[in-house]
């Protein structure tokens, strides 16, 4: 009996954990699928969707960049796949109106920063990140 234990973890909350038959995501190298008995792997995740196949069907998560680690668990035949994402949510939890508002706010902030007083480089970067997140959420939600 081989099983794959999947954990999707963010800094504020452990989003989901359970057994699955596979996990699909994209790293900076390319798309990959993790199946039970996968070899130990550490890698990064680019922003996009992480799909987890479970007994109750496919779950999908919107991940805004992160890392993953696959290790054999202590027990025989158990593989543990951990997804660490700074920000992530179930795709079904995406709030479209909020994403639209966030996109506009981020765009506005970028514009005002570029117009003149762009003295705070980190604030601009954060606004760009927020814009990217809002766009990713919208593109997923509109599918």
């Amino acid at each position, binding site marked *: 009996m081989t099983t794959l234990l999947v954990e999707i973890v963010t800094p504020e909350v452990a989003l989901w954990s359970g057994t699955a038959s596979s996990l699909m995501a994209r790293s900076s190298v390319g798309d990959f699928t993790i199946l039970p008995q996968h070899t130990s792997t550490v*890698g990064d995740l680019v922003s996009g969707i992480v799909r987890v196949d479970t007994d109750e069907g496919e779950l999908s998560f919107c991940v805004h960049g992160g890392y993953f*680690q696959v*290790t054999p668990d202590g027990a025989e035949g158990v593989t543990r796949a951990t997804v660490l994402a*700074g920000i992530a949510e179930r795709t079904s939890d995406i709030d479209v109106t909020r994403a639209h508002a966030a996109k506009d706010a981020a765009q506005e902030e970028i514009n005002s920063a570029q117009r003149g007083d762009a003295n705070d480089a980190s604030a601009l970067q954060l606004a760009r990140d927020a814009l990217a997140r809002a766009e990713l959420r919208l593109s997923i939600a509109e599918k």
Partner: protein
Amino acid sequence: MAGGQERILRRRIKSVQATRKITKAMELIAASQISRSQARIFANRPYRQGMQRIIIEAALGDPAAAQKLLSMPDTVETAIVIVVAGDRGLSGAYNSSVLRAGERVIKQLQSQGSAVRLFCVGKKAAPFYRFRGLDVERSFVGFADRPSFADARLIASVVAAPFSEEQAQEVLLVSTRFLSAGSQSVETERLLPLSVPDVPIDETPKVLKGYTEFEPDVKELLTSLAPRALESEIFSALLEGAASFHISQQRAMAAATDNADDLGQSLTRIMNRARQDSITTEIMEIVGGAEALRSGK
């Protein structure tokens, strides 16, 4: 005259009781915040530990690259110090102990010939250092009670920029770590260059075998991991600082409530004695007056 003293005492008792009501309320509020902030620390642990495990794994996977990326430079020309204190006072020694520890760290760095760029978290921090003639580069306020991950990301992006532009060689964090509900301690942690956690935090030793695949390779991974690990460490320090603050405040306010009880009790005793005295004096006066009238007849 005696009646006047009684009135003064009564007024003081009233004010002590009013203060007691406030400290009691603050104690209860802090107590309710403790469990909430503790729950947030526990919710953060899987992420933080997962992050640390990936760093350990990557460092073991390519020790040479890790050595190069993670080792300390020979000379630290400029060090960044982040001090995490609270937004509010009335919390016992919470603020002063972390601020003093930060001051010691800064003094030590300066005596070693490093310039210090100081960043503060919490309203209580910046005035402390400004008063001591230190320059606070930026002060982050308003979220020390209930930090969110976005707050940690903001701080991380601000302090990571000079480090990656090689204007600073070291980033240190001074904060109160939450060891358990009964014990918190002020600690100084080196955030950058990344330190590999020396104790494997995992209970499964299989993690540390070192035949792991990496996508992309270790060098790239560690480079991109550094800012994420920085965020994670800052966030956990903020969470633990908030929990420590609430515990410290609850303890301080419980002590203040007890003191108010004691003070109220002793004031009440003094007031009762004063009232009794004045009654006794009045009776003596009446009796004395009556005696005088009767003998005068």
